[in-house]
């Protein structure tokens, strides 16, 4: 209820852009579903744009058109939600998607990304994800991959760099 009041207040000013920071995190699944529906209806009817900040992949899948994945303070992958969730390109996004348990599947061990997110004061050289990356190459420890745009979106990973990694 309180969350809906906040949303209503945000709308009074007829905004063009709404930034929603973890809008459903503290909510029940059924209320959460209603908030998601409300946000989507709103975009459709008023033409407002929404930046949704969340770590809930289910909410992203149900709400967003495009998604930007962040790691250690930087955007590492951008694309249409369906592309990024179904066929993630960055090894971090791929690891995240694989680690989500799914109803109807019961593996013996959940695929996991070993290690932990680095502290922002101790970001590794090169690609910040390299110590945890299953596909790490030589160049990854030396050079930070830039966010390279292509027809599908953008990825910051040497596997997708234009020049072949040397």
């Amino acid at each position, binding site marked *: 209820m309180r969350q809906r009041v906040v949303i209503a207040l945000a709308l009074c000013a007829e905004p063009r852009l709404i930034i929603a920071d973890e809008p459903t995190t503290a909510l029940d699944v*059924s209320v959460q579903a*209603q908030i998601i529906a409300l946000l989507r209806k709103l975009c459709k009817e008023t033409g407002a744009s929404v930046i949704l900040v969340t*770590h809930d992949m289910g909410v992203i899948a149900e709400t967003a058109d495009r998604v930007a994945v962040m790691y250690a303070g930087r955007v590492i992958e951008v694309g249409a939600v*369906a592309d990024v969730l179904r066929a993630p390109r960055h090894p971090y996004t791929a690891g995240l998607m694989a680690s989500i348990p799914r109803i*109807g599947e019961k593996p013996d061990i959940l695929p996991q990304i070993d290690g*932990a997110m680095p502290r922002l004061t101790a970001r590794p050289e090169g690609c910040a994800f390299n110590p945890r990356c299953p596909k790490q190459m030589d160049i990854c420890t030396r050079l930070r991959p830039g966010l390279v745009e292509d027809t599908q979106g953008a990825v910051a990973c040497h596997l997708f760099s234009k020049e072949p990694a040397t």
Partner: protein
Amino acid sequence: MSHHNEAPLLEVSGLRKSFDLSKPFINRVIERSERQLVKAVDGVDFTIQRGQTLSLVGESGCGKSTVAKLIMGLTRPSGGSIRFEGAELAGQVAGKPAHVRRRMQMIFQDPYASLNPRWRVARIIAEPMKSFGTHPDPEARRREVDRLLEFVGLGAADGDKFPHEFSGGQRQRISIARAISTKPEFLVCDEPTSALDVSVQAQILNLMRELQRELGLTYLFISHDLAVVNYISDWIGVMYLGRLVELAPAAEIFAKPQHPYTRLLLDTVPDISMSNRDIERPAGEVPNPITPPPGCHFHPRCPHANARCKTEMPEFIASATGHARCHAVQEGRLSAPTTAPAAAGAV
């Protein structure tokens, strides 16, 4: 409730807990207000076999944590019984009887709030061993702490640090090390991964499964994430407003949900395969637990409610897959459940 012949490790029956939210007597007289009781837990029955995991799921406020606290003796039941290997715990205070309590430990949701910020990690982990007297010699205790730290994927050197030096996932590992330090057989885990993001959640869930295999632990696991519960459990109980509405093996409850509320929960789980993005979401919210609807608590939100549902509380009786509390299930007037899609719960 289970098909094993062996006696269950934990047996909960008719468990009840009411909280009195009334104003003091004199105010009630002056303001003519009624007594206000919240029936947080209102007649819950389940058993857990040794080495198995039973999970409780349900929306916020349905009484999951209260069940956990009742079992751990952190709050006293208003009625019912809690037997651990046959020994009655209902009515006993926290920590008593010590020889039984030592065999039960709890892991909490918030790995930030549940560790004393002023204690070094080694002292935090050693505390249960000290209070239960399992390792009286300080040096042996420290050796055990070092072993436990490595067992949960940290290093012995981490014992000298303070909790704030660790990430959320690492703190949950510390909580787990503390919980298993007295070699308990039974762990109550109240939303142990809800504060963590998905990659850390996978690490903790894998660690818990590994501990279960190696130490033969029995878990009561609490979560509102159906996919997590599906991964970790042998049995799943769905709670609604203080009552269990369905209890069945994990392999069956989401494939063949019997109770209309279990079906609603499955329909509302955000679906990462994006296959039902445009379907209408079921409406309605959990009613106020102080004045729950009469009859079946779920009837105002239930598409199958009829006159009987509004007045008569359904009993918790055998269903096709386990137990369910629903007139329609019992009268056989529900259509066959649809199979659940590959959905992911909140992450």
